[in-house]
């Protein structure tokens, strides 16, 4: 098995075995989108208009749920030290690690996003566009959370630091992912553009964030 495949598979397996897999983020996401209408009120028009934004925002917060453990556990059990002593690039290892965990824990978010969209009164096609936007956003959200998690690895109450670092960086993804659902609901052609921009941000993050995560890991271990 290749090095990166081994790390991807191990992270996915550990996320299932030790962290409850997708249950945590999915439960948080479901709770948030179920409670929000109780605060907003029963007006159907208002719920449908606010739905894409609430769903994208709740998905963002769900991704942050596991960010503290992503590198914190590896920091305290010595795994990060061992990763530094492998011939494979640390940036590639970090990418495989974050993606492995994201694949095991975040996969329900687009599905719940589609169901949530219907629940908020979006037409099926708009709900599907919103689900696709959330799917496109996951790599960017996971890697930004991973970057913040690496910077906060081993720090007491690192969750606060992660929230402060990650949330501003997630703003563009939030805007375009929610925008895709909103535009689809409004029936305007910018839905596809928003969806593609979300995907573009994710691809850019996949290309750049691993280097930032690797630098953060080195900094925490130094």
């Amino acid at each position, binding site marked *: 098995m290749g090095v990166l495949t081994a790390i991807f598979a191990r992270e996915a397996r550990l996320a299932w075995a030790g962290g409850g897999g997708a249950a945590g983020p999915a439960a948080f996401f479901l709770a948030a989108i179920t409670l929000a209408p109780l605060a907003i009120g029963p007006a159907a028009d208002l719920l449908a208009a606010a739905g894409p934004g609430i769903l994208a925002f709740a998905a963002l917060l769900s991704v942050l749920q596991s960010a503290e453990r992503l590198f914190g556990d590896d920091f305290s*059990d010595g795994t990060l030290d061992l990763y530094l002593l*492998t011939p*494979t690039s640390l940036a590639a290892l970090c990418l495989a690690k974050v993606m492995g965990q994201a694949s095991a824990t975040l996969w329900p978010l687009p599905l719940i996003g589609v169901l949530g969209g219907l629940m908020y009164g979006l037409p099926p096609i708009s709900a599907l566009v919103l689900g696709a936007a959330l799917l496109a956003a996951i790599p960017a959200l996971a890697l930004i959370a991973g970057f913040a998690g690496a910077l906060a690895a081993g720090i007491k109450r690192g969750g606060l630091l992660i929230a402060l670092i990650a949330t501003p960086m997630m703003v563009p993804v939030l805007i375009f992912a929610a925008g895709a659902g909103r535009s689809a609901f409004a029936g305007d052609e910018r839905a596809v553009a928003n969806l593609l921009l979300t995907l573009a941000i994710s691809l850019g993050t996949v290309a750049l964030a691993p280097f930032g995560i690797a630098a953060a890991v080195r900094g925490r271990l130094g």
Partner: protein
Amino acid sequence: MTSASLSRTVTPAPKFPDLRLSVSDLGLSRGDMVLARDLGLALGPGEALLLTGRNGTGKTSLLRALAGFIEPDTGAIRLNDEPAALAAADTIAWLGHADGLKPGETPRSALRFWADLYGQPRTAIMPALRALEIDHLIDRPAARLSRGQQRRCGLARIVLAHRPLWLLDEPAGPLDAEGRACLAALVASHRARGGLVIAATHQPLDWPDARSLDMGAI
């Protein structure tokens, strides 16, 4: 340790290519505390060095500098005349305070992962576990292993890595007398193959001809 297990640990294995570690004029500090100044070291094939000294004298910091995890303030660390930071990734096997085990992971799954990462065959896992006398625990989750058993699993990973320079931080800390005998046999076997061992320790380790460096005295 039984004679059978000893014979397993000293099974002839291919020699490592010659490796020399040299440290010159090394300065190391933590915050405003100077841990080492103008430190020089030279270690050749088959040699072992024990870093001793009280808590806080810089044993772990020196090991971490040798592994390339932290930058020394001054001086150079070289492996065969190459900067250690460049050669470390396929030369050094590291055992820190923690063993890199996840609570839900068994020795089998953990060592399979590390074998893949180190590019070693998975068939080397069982011999490594046998050498540490924990082959019967191969499918027990790490959370249900004692601290000493987890340490043995960490040492099995070191054996599996098949690298010439071992950097060990308190390797015998949680080990019982039998475990320390296993460790001594492994170190002897590694040195016989031309490997180098540097260990930070509070416990006296009976490793023949091992040099000692008191970090509190430098």
